[in-house]
């Protein structure tokens, strides 16, 4: 684990928002992620992919904030997908019994195909 300063970038692929959290996902940075997602949800986006390829570590507060994003998205009938998680990140979700509440994909392409957006 080599936690870099947190940054969040995003892009729109058709009607899907793809979010790229980078670094250590904790309370402070998690708020940034939530607000980035919220920004898209407010504009009517109902499909969000969080790509964890550049995320070093997710702590329990980060996880709870991801649950908030999911809850917010569910109220609009939207879908949240997670991609590019490493073995340990997946393991953490599994330990907490959360795998059944999220959709996990090996990569962004698979998630985009699932959501009906075209993979670039």
């Amino acid at each position, binding site marked *: *684990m080599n*936690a870099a300063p947190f940054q969040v970038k995003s892009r729109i692929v058709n009607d899907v928002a793809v979010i790229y959290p980078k670094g*250590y996902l*904790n309370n*402070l940075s998690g708020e940034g992620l939530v607000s980035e997602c919220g920004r898209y949800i407010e504009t009517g986006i109902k499909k969000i992919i969080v790509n964890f390829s550049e995320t070093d*570590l997710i*702590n*329990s*507060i980060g*996880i*709870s*904030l991801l*649950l*908030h994003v999911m*809850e917010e998205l569910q109220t609009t009938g939207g879908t949240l997908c997670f991609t590019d998680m490493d*073995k*340990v990140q997946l*393991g*953490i979700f599994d*330990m*907490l*019994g*959360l795998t059944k*509440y999220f959709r996990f994909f090996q990569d962004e392409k698979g998630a985009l195909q699932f959501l009906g957006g075209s993979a670039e």
Partner: protein
Amino acid sequence: MPLYGIPAKDYLDREDELAYLKRLASLRRDTLADNVLLIGPRGIGKTEFLKQLYRSLFWDSKDVVPFYYSFKTAALKSTTFARDYFARFVKQYVAFVKKEPLHVNNMSMPLPRLIPLISTLGLDWLIDCIDDFQQNTDQGDLYGQILSAISTPVNAAVRGGRPVLVMLDDFTASEELHETKRGDAPGLTSLFEESMKNSLCPHIITGSPSAKLEAIFSDPALHKGTERMRLYPLPEDTAYALFSSLLAKMKISFDREAALDIIRRVKGSPLYIRNMARAAWKMKKNNLDKKDFSECYSFEIIDGETAFYWSSVFSESLRDKGIRRTILELLMHRIARGETGDQERLSKVLGVREPRLSEALDALELNDFGGSDDPLLKDFVQSLYFREVEGKTGAEIRKLIEAKYDVPADSSVFEMVIPMSDQAELVAARAVDQIGKNINLEPELMNYLQLALVESCINAMEHSGSYEKKIYLKFTTTPQRLEIAIESPGRHFTLDSLKESPTEEKMTAGQKRGWGFTLMRKIMDEVRVERISDRTRVTLIKNIKRNEVLK
């Protein structure tokens, strides 16, 4: 009793100091030496040192008369003290001249019954001294009586033609000399001044605590003409020789390395070394290994001679029971932090008002408890704190003390302190990374361990509420096990108080937080939460399997 003590052949490593003090009378006469203030921490062997000197002069010297007086056992009502001091001097003088130890210790024999013997020895001037003293007593002249007693060694030196070496032990207690009740006659100690000035009568003065003794001698009248001699702990080889000879006498065999561990732990203190040997005997050990030593040590701290010794010192020094608890809390704070902090901050941290805190701090300084680096004293204080403040049982305390030193031989221990600030937990996580690499841990496991530690640190930051924004970490690794202790000051918490709701509940509830301990328990083999004085300690334990180590 000055003639009782360790046999001279078993008394080690103070030869140079003894040789100097044996010559003190002649050096003083030639103005080459002063009175000697013998300084050293409690338990370093100041009393035993004086006894060795006394015995050596008693048997080997014809020219210098030794006189030993301990204020520890003395009655401190001034008239009683004067009679006692005088009688002991006369008896020790007679015993020396006749080389008859019986008189040294025979305090029940009235002085008049010694007069025929004194006359036979040709010490008629001593009979005059007895008469003079009796006259002062009969006249009810308090100061005359005390001065007469204190000046008897000088009179004896002048009239008897032989210098007298006066050894005053536990001299700090002389501050409590009084007429009818404590504190009604301050300054009686200064009556020794005249006697100390006489070159025929050098004084060696000692006592504890050193700070109090030094304070008495800060009076310029006493300070002038007094040199300091410091007694140091025994070096390791001498301490080992002492320990092994004591155990050999009790027919107890032992593991050398384990014995050396204990000697290092007690930092060469002769008192503790003797107490440890006695503890082994009391516990009926006949072949001491590391575990036996550990048991003897915890016995000593909780129930043994060392506990008794320090209990007496605490009771004696801290008579006010109210302040005792504050002092225990203060000491525990210092032991835990290794720092003193300013008074205002301490007051907040300990929840003690400043006037009371100030009183406690003064008592600590005066009694030499504050800055002590004596590990046994620290363990004793902890044990007292556990018992008196936290209500722990002897068995619980013993377990805690034994666990403190239970470090496997093939282990590595790292300690660090991190601030309670944003992302400080990542610094701790980096430490785990390196520690894991040191023992070739598989990277995936290492990442999980890092997360468990991160969660524990976050938990400490969120629950502490302490003014002291620090987290104390201790990593202990062996090839088979990693143990991380995370201690945080402030508000205590338990696993029960941190009960985390099930995932299903969290998914429907507004509150999504509270996964930390679930994660820690899933990742680690054992998670313990304990209250250790004013800190909460979370211990994370991982037993490392063979497949979790890189080939």
